[in-house]
């Protein structure tokens, strides 16, 4: 029998990138909030290491205790048996995956919010990819702009604006939507290699800019500037310069006196009453089961667990899971790696780049071949990919370099000379592709694989996507052109090998106006459950050519602010 705890105003399930932001507007509005987090607090100076074995080989930062037991299974087509990977980079901790992501912090392009109507207007219906279920979002870029601004200033984002209230500045991203003001901090320090690539991009007519990062470029709100030590990828920041929510919005929310953080809490079910409204959540902690009553619940786990917890929370009023009375839960799921797994480009230069240190987010970007920033007439696809070249190379990864045709095999004396000369002279690019939802891609419960509590894990079915594959291959060509302009002597590029489980998982609880094609409304609340909100990548209807983090944080802020403003209506 669960131990019943005193009622609170709001329970937030999961204190990661999204839930960790939502707690701030809630608590500032005076609501009493309990944050239930499956992990615990990290201690940056002792928990993170400048160590490739720790971060990248053993994946000790990115492998949480709970997420490690519920990695989704994956298959390409419904006739296959889905298989479970041994691990997937997620995290259980206060701060969640905002601790170990690369911390590039993007606003989406205005086009991303209205791909369907924009494509019909510019190219006609034939350009909408076959089998895609893409809809315009129920919010526009302009609707979200104030919330992007809150996140940039409250979380702490460094960068250079390219469009302030319509004034274009070519030092920033000229393709971005209009913003009310610049970032609170300038971009991260540049370096020789990035300066060279910036000049190279301009020489071929591209429009390079320094990518925005949720990393301090200078001291900000009591946290130091980034030390650029080269261990940001799949590692946490030892000096708290990365603006993960455990060092930004969560402590600010605690300072209001209205947030209680309950760590090591494994939420099993969202509970509802006979009217179908949410009454609270049931969780396990130290072997005890608790029921935490709440007037409202915000579900803020990673996309996979948001979908799974809703599917598992069945009741008489919600027999197929919460938010699934129209069969939409798990539909319109998609990942950034659905089309572009393995997509990318690499280059070998005739000199040492000295990009061992730095950070993945210490980079230079080109948006010319992303979104609808170029004419797609005759190309056979819509969207594209951002081009990103960056610093931070780790020695094992550097030595495992390609042969570039310069040595016959990857071992022996000749190969040793190859890596002696070239391990510090090659680099790769990061290409992120605009990605749409499709009928052939969804999430449901796996019929065979269960977690240690006996609950099924999530199962991803992800079929091929022609549009995104073409967009990624097109961008890989452009990236190689850019590398060559930067004096690379060898380049490689490929468009991707097909779908795989994504670290940029989107959708599954899509936001929309029509309950027949979406799970949550324009403010992120489940259509037929007014006091249950969902925050995180699972509400997003399309993926930009960039990671979803700042967008899902802006949406989380907006959902939380809406809940506080509409408290009586939502909790009546």
């Amino acid at each position, binding site marked *: 029998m669960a131990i019943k705890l005193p009622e609170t105003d709001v329970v937030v399930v999961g204190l990661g990138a999204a839930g960790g932001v939502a707690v701030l507007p809630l608590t500032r509005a005076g609501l009493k909030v309990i944050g239930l987090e499956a992990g615990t607090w990290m201690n940056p100076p002792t928990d993170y290491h400048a160590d490739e074995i720790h971060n990248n080989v053993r994946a000790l930062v990115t492998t949480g205790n709970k997420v490690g037991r519920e990695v989704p299974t994956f298959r390409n087509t419904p006739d296959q048996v889905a298989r479970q990977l041994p691990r997937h980079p997620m995290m259980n901790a206060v701060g969640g995956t905002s601790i170990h992501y690369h911390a590039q912090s993007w606003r989406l392009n205005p086009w991303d919010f209205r791909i369907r109507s924009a494509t019909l207007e510019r190219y006609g219906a034939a350009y909408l990819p076959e089998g895609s279920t893409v809809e315009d979002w129920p919010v526009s870029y302009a609707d979200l702009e104030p919330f992007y601004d809150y996140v940039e200033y409250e979380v702490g984002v460094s960068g250079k604006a390219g469009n302030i209230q319509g004034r274009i500045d070519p030092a920033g991203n000229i393709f971005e939507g209009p913003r009310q003001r610049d970032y609170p901090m300038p971009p991260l320090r540049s370096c020789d290699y990035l300066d060279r690539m910036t000049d190279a991009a301009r020489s071929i007519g591209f429009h390079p800019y320094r990518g925005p990062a949720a990393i301090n*470029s200078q001291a900000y709100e009591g946290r130091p*500037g980034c030390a650029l030590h080269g261990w940001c990828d799949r590692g946490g920041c030892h000096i708290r*310069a990365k603006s993960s929510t455990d060092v930004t919005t969560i402590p600010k929310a605690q300072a209001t006196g209205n947030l209680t953080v309950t760590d090591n809490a494994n939420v099993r079910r969202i509970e509802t009453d006979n009217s179908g409204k949410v009454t609270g959540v049931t969780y396990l902690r130290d072997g005890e089961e608790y029921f935490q009553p709440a007037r409202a619940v915000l579900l803020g786990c990673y996309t996979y667990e948001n979908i799974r917890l809703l599917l598992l929370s069945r009741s008489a009023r919600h027999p197929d899971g919460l938010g699934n009375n129209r069969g939409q839960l798990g539909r319109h799921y998609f990942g950034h790696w659905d089309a572009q797994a393995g997509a990318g480009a690499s280059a070998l230069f005739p000199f040492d780049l000295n990009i061992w240190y730095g950070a993945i987010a210490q980079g230079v970007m080109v948006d010319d071949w992303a979104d609808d920033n170029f004419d797609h007439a005759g190309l056979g696809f819509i969207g594209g990919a951002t081009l990103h070249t960056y610093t931070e190379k780790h*020695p094992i990864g550097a030595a495992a370099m390609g042969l570039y045709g310069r040595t016959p095999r990857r071992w022996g004396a000749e190969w040793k000379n190859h890596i*002696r000369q070239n391990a510090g002279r090659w680099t*790769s690019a990061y290409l992120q592709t605009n990605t749409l939802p499709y009928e052939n891609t969804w999430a449901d419960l796996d019929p065979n694989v269960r977690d240690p509590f006996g609950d099924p894990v999530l199962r991803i079915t992800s079929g091929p996507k022609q549009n995104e594959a073409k967009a990624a291959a097109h961008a890989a060509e452009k990236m190689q052109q850019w590398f060559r302009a930067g004096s690379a002597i060898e380049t490689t590029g490929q468009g991707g090998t097909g779908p795989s489980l994504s670290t940029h998982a989107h959708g599954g609880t899509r936001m929309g106006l029509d309950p027949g094609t979406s799970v949550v409304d324009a403010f992120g609340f489940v259509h037929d459950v007014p006091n249950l909100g969902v925050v995180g990548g699972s509400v997003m209807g399309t993926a930009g050519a960039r990671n979803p983090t700042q967008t899902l944080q802006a949406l989380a802020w907006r959902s939380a602010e809406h809940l506080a403003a509409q408290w009586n209506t939502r909790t009546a």
Partner: protein
Amino acid sequence: MNKSKNADDGTRSSDNSDNSISTQLSRRTLLRSGVAAGSATLIPLVAVSCSSTPTPPPDSLSAELNAVLDAFADRILPPDAEGPGAAASGVTRYINRSLAEWNQADVPLVRGGLQALDAAARARHTQGFIALNADQQDSLLLAMEAGQVQDFANAQAVFNRLHRLVLEGMFSDPYYGGNANYAGWDLIGYPGAVLGSTEEMQRMGGRLPPLHTSAYGEQHDGH
């Protein structure tokens, strides 16, 4: 991320030499200058050791198989005039440690694979792998890499896994038992683990001088 995933192509060779910029930038300067740009925070370049010297775990492989592994590792990264090979750099020590700690699932593959490699050597040459000359060893490894060794069905999988483990041992932090005397990092020009970098440490124009710093300070069993 697919940082290390790339196809092999191209034919030209580069003739650039590795001009060290150590004249401009000494190790001492680097160690003193751990100041992040735009910040007054002083960042020590050598991490504080997080634990006392760990006791090395017992070898997961027999002395006999360790010798085969040493010989295998030295064909992947042979010693040469400029530096030691993988065996002298402690790669076998690293692999044993990983098999005892976080790679336990690989023990059957590695143990069985090394036994199969040794058996294949005896079948071809009537003596074990370590007794073969370098050319004989290389031709056996070529066949192994191609998955074409008689009575060694998973030769290719074993080769790929051992190849990866040799790289890990050679180029990981010496804290884990390989990369002895920073031989792996010196080979590829990685200066060492630091907790902050300066603009000079990202300047192009030649190799950075070695720092020989571990993320775990000087007190570990890797030296």
